[in-house]
């Protein structure tokens, strides 16, 4: 006689999905942070300030979108720092090539990310090199290339007007374009993850690659595409950042690696893959951005910020990111 399963969940309706809990907690923390911030400064809850936060967060948001896909797949992409920088540098470099350069600056920057992602994806999918190590190596290679290319100096090219349009300006009232870009990218990502065969395949592979493979999914192709997505979104983020700052800078991408991973994980996505939703990443990005800005508003010095940053992440993960007890 087959064993009887417990929680008799009603047909076709779920009790609260345990996956949603972290997202709810994350949004609660966002509210808490907004509250704390407003205690320090009245401006904290003003629309201008909030939009400014969203704008700053948008760059991390675009980068973290790519990271979400890779982590859901059960892998990791440590080549984000120099994908971002390469996208920025080469996008700006294109500006030196006249009107054609200007027109193709953004696609060219993104193309760098595509190339990086292809190398990563191919190595993971076909050569079965662990993603942690290959993306690390690729990151170092891209760094080497960029350092050699710029001769070690700060890049001189400035961003094209199209890059500045997306990164720094606001077309519609006071809504920064960067936020709109993130919204579009995010909506597309959520759609792909939730409603397409590609998204389903990503979850399946992240859950258990052997099952996905034996079920007829073309796992290798999906892995390559996912890394291409991550690389191109990172590079695109770099392009936007260059537009925001007016030019690229050495090591500009370093500050985005750990926050992008943290944003994804704080949003409830399991680092092991197969579990999580994009909206969680959105929450994670906003959470981290708010946290960083509160820390500067409260005028804690840099060291305090680092410590609080680390402690908060650990506490939040302890709240909902723990692996189950194995006995």
């Amino acid at each position, binding site marked *: *006689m*087959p*064993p*009887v*399963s*417990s*929680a*008799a*969940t*009603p*047909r*076709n*309706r*779920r009790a609260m999905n345990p996956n949603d809990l972290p997202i709810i907690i994350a949004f609660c923390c966002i509210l808490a942070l907004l509250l704390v911030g407003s205690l320090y400064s009245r401006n904290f809850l003003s629309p201008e300030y909030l939009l400014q936060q969203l704008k700053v967060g948008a760059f991390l948001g675009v980068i973290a979108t790519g990271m979400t896909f890779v982590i859901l797949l059960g892998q990791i992409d440590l080549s984000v720092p120099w994908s971002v920088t390469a996208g920025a540098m080469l996008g700006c470099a294109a500006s030196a090539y006249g009107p054609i350069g200007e027109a193709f600056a953004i696609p060219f920057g993104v193309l760098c990310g595509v190339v990086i992602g292809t190398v990563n994806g191919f190595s993971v999918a076909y050569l079965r090199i662990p993603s942690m190590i290959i993306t690390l190596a690729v990151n170092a290679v891209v760094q080497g290339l960029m350092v050699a290319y710029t001769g070690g100096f700060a890049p001189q090219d400035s961003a094209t007007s199209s890059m500045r349009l997306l990164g720094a300006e606001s077309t519609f009232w006071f809504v920064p374009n960067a936020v709109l870009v993130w919204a579009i990218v995010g909506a597309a990502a959520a759609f792909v993850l939730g*409603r*397409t*065969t*590609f998204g*389903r395949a990503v*979850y*399946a592979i992240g*859950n*258990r690659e*052997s*099952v*996905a*493979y*034996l*079920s*007829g*999914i*073309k796992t290798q192709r999906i892995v390559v595409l996912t890394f291409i997505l991550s690389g191109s979104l990172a590079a695109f983020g770099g392009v936007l950042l260059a537009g925001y700052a007016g030019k690229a800078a050495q090591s500009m991408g370093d500050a985005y690696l750990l926050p992008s991973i943290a944003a994804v994980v704080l949003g409830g996505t399991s680092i092991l893959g*197969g*579990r999580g939703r994009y909206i969680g990443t959105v929450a994670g990005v906003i959470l981290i951005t708010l946290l960083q800005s509160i820390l500067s508003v409260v005028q804690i010095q840099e060291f305090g910020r680092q410590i609080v940053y680390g402690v908060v992440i650990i506490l939040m993960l302890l709240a909902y990111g723990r692996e189950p007890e194995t*006995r």
Partner: protein
Amino acid sequence: MTEQGPVLRMEGITKRYGGVRALDDAHLHVRAGRIHAILGENGAGKSTLIKVLSGVVTPDAGAIFIDDRPVTFPTPAAANEAGVACIFQELSLIPDLTAADNILIGNPPRRMGLIDRRRQRRLAEEALVRAGGSDIHPLALVRDLPLSRRQIVEIAKALVRNPRILILDEATSALTAADVETVFELLKRLRSEGLALLYISHRMHEIAELADECTVFRNGRNVATFAAASRTDREIVEMMIGREFKSQFPPRPAVGKRETQPILDVRDLIWRPRLNQVSLTVRAGEVVGLGGLDGQGQTELLLALFGVLRGLKGDIRIAGKAIEIASPGAASSEGIGMALIPADRKTEGLLLPMTVRENLSLSALGRFSPFGVVNRESERRSVAEMIALLNIKPDGAEVPVATLSGGNQQKVVIAKWLMLRPRIILLNDPTRGIDVGTKQEIYALLRRLADGGAAILFYSTDYDELVGLCDRVLVMYEGAVQRELEGDTLTERALVGSALNMRWAADGDGSGASAPT
């Protein structure tokens, strides 16, 4: 052997996993100097009982007594201290350590705080000899040893602790026939030395040879204990399943489909070292079985057909056309139309944390997703259809598939493939570990599919199934088809005979022609 009280007593053991009661007030008495066999279907609680006894799992209720003293085993180490050693089904060997390291892992000989490697090696060699593995080098890495050698190392590891109670959980499943003989000798010797031995196995003939006493488990309880050979096989099976046992197989159509071209035509398939020129054909409407002893290449054959193996030589023709199958993706595509229900549904067939719906639609997703976007309504409808068709219980599509029983989980795996309407269905021991009721449903389903034109190739370790369900059975030995049985020649006796006959012939024993017991 003096008639004394049981050296081991387990009383009132209960263990729940979620809502499933793996053990329900179970008890067991084992005496020293006896081999005590435990029988029961998969899911009856045998494995959980063993895990409780060996300290891997803590029971929710109940007590264990050794020599009438109450003991508790919070960890496997504690069980070992008390003299209980277990040889597990999933081996507990560390792949990257040497055989010697593994054998002495519990309590290595020490010198000045460090492991005394010389003494360790000597002890390991002694244990290996005792376990019948004198050909195994103590410094060999376990990951480099074949499965049968690993099992011997596992046995040596259990023996080195000089246990009082030795448990063997399906310990002979990976062994070659010669090894099994050696292990039996060993077990009989240990019995005469006064150990209490617990032996779990599905193989009735092994139990007949070894056991002094038998206990049958069903639904987490001990339903009967009796002296070996005091019950017939049929009575034992009825105790295991709990009711009058009459295996029901759907009627087979009369033989007579010779004229049509086979859908699957395999010629001289070679894959070193497991497949040696396999040739077979399967026609539409046929259920062809693969038989023979474990590990003769049956799984590799199915994997080869499904595109999982690299370096394959030989010819595979689908509906007359020679084709190279590069991957499961290719095998399941519309042009070829193959499906494989794999051996281990938990690691090869299902995404356990995901819902029934997500699992069911996994392979066929492309069929209702124009331009890659999933049409939710189409998916829901198809999923509901399948749930109804296969009678999957509970019938909610949004529950995680992990909450379903083994039988229903297997139905989900089968349904996943049926969504693609495959014309060739490969099954790798699909009814292992499934309750009898679901088995009957699956038999009926397979026959229906065959009648509808599918070609079915079906590996099973259950002789009843092969005889009852298949039109033809191909008995495999050492990677090739040795005999084909059908119609009147397809009997259990012939199956066992062919499988064993091959073994005897290979061992050079001239008496291969005598009928097996």
